[in-house]
């Protein structure tokens, strides 16, 4: 380190301190700005009909996005039912059976890779295995793509949450003569319950706002979801289509849908973070 004058060093420190405050304010300002625009532009679209009615043909006023709201809810639910149990069991393997085994290390690395894979690639993969061979888009393909996104996130949070459970609990359970599966599911899972539920919720919140994986799988539809065997309406692809349309009524509906998605995702995120922080604080 070059020796430098006291004034020089003080000046560098002061400069950084001055830059810091506006830098930190950018974070809040952008969040506030996005929320403000979404609320102001979207609130006008939120009427009872928005939740209960089908979309109207282009250029015609009125109607709603009831089908897309229901479709997003159903596909997210199906994705959770498909992805979360596998993720929980796989997380058990990583935390309980293989903290340092070679297979677990490989699985952990692959899980990170899958988490880092762009969601549009997941959409294309599901298109190749579930849409191309069958010949049409479907709600099942959409749910499968979302489940693929949920899986690695649930695996990671499950492993983290199980690692927070003290080993004494495991040892006490085993010492009582309980087999491992009962110790894991009956004791360890119960001890980590809140954290596990939160992890799943966070993953679900994240995928419920995803668009890219649904573009080539669920596509979209103007009708009520009848079965998952056909293209299924959903909010995010609707936002994309409506926002790019020239009709001001559609653009307004896109803002309404944005408001709905943003509010629900942020509410879950706030609740989940609150619970996770609380748990980590207590376990430490």
């Amino acid at each position, binding site marked *: 380190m070059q020796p430098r004058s006291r004034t020089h060093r003080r000046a560098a420190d002061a400069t*950084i301190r001055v830059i810091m405050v506006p830098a930190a304010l950018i974070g809040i300002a952008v*969040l*506030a700005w996005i929320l403000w625009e979404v609320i102001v532009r979207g609130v006008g679209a939120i009427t009872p009909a928005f939740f209960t009615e089908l979309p109207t043909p282009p250029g015609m006023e009125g109607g709603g996005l009831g089908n897309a709201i229901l479709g997003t809810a159903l596909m997210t639910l199906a994705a959770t039912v498909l992805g979360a149990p596998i993720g929980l069991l796989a997380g058990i393997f990583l935390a309980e059976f293989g903290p340092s085994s070679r297979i677990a290390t490989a699985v952990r690395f692959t899980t990170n890779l899958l988490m880092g894979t*762009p969601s549009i690639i997941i959409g294309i993969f599901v298109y190749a295995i579930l849409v191309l061979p069958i010949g049409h888009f479907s709600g099942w393909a959409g749910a499968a793509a979302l489940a693929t996104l949920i899986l690695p996130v649930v695996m990671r949070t499950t492993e983290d949450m199980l690692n927070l459970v003290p080993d004494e609990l495991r040892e006490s359970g085993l010492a009582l003569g309980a087999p491992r599966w009962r110790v894991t599911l009956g004791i360890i899972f119960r001890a980590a319950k809140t954290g596990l539920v939160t992890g799943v919720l966070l993953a679900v919140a994240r995928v419920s706002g995803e668009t890219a994986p649904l573009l080539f799988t669920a596509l979209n539809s103007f009708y009520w979801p009848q079965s998952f065997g056909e293209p299924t309406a959903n909010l*995010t692809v609707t936002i994309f289509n409506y926002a790019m349309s020239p009709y001001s009524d559609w653009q307004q509906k896109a803002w309404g849908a944005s408001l709905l998605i943003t509010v629900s995702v942020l509410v879950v995120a706030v609740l989940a973070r609150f619970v996770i922080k609380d748990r980590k604080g207590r376990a430490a």
Partner: protein
Amino acid sequence: MVERYAIAPGAPGNASRDQSRPDAIFKWLTAGCSMVVILIMAGILFELVRNSGMALKEFGFSFLTSDAWNPGMGEFGAASSVYGTLVSTAIAMVIAVPLSIIIAVFLVEVARPRVSRFIGGAIELLAAVPSIIYGMWGLFVFAALMQNHVQPFLGNRLGALPLFQGPPMGIGMLTAGLILALMVLPFITAVTRDVLMMVPPVLKESAHGVGSTMWEAVRFVSLKYGRRGIVGAVFLGFGRALGETMAVTFVIGNSHRISASLFSAGNTIASSLANEFNEASEPIYLSSLFALALVLFGITLAFQTIAHHWVARMQRIEAGDR
């Protein structure tokens, strides 16, 4: 890491046989579930390679180097999309990395706990906002700001550089890069903040004890101590920016032309896929889009593997130091 169970399942003298069998089933069940991720990754690679076969056979290596993209003529090349992906990511990282580190230092070293929690919470929420919302905001709100204020300003001041020439359209490469910067900022900030908080107080106190200013203590002690975590965070942000789809698709303008100006419309691999995949009617068109997806998958895989090994190597070197 401590081995969780000292006694191996089914070991003699341990549990009786009928107890160890359900346990063995349980273990294999969980192991089987964890294999699903490996299966999925292998499946993605297999399907992308299989479906892009036609395009790769037709164009060969020139698929990567050609910037032709004429669906009508059956000519396809990845160069403009790869260029756009790398340039928009580079803009995002150049802005987001220093900004995130400065914000993290502010949160840990300068701000009062209450202020720090509030700002930190807001930045974490920014990470939870879905990317299509960034797209809506970017297209209808931010692009107007770019068109009316930022781009004319840059054009007037720095118009001599080819980077800032051309009409201010609002959308384009620069807008996409800035939105990406906002999207990766919360990730890098959050991890850097956690890393800085884990620096042992005694190290920081020693720095202050020999007369360091706050910034010197951060720069020469905290950032050095936590560099492995921070490098990991930067890689994480980079990976996200490379594959981000919806926000970019809304604001980049979707043109398959390589242009020196950051004001002009461009595209990225992800935005091309989002726009064109459902329109691809010809088999060679679809195959070329699969090839494009393969290129993106390859870039992110290579990138993450390098990041993983780099961080592991830094860990080994640091372990050797002490």
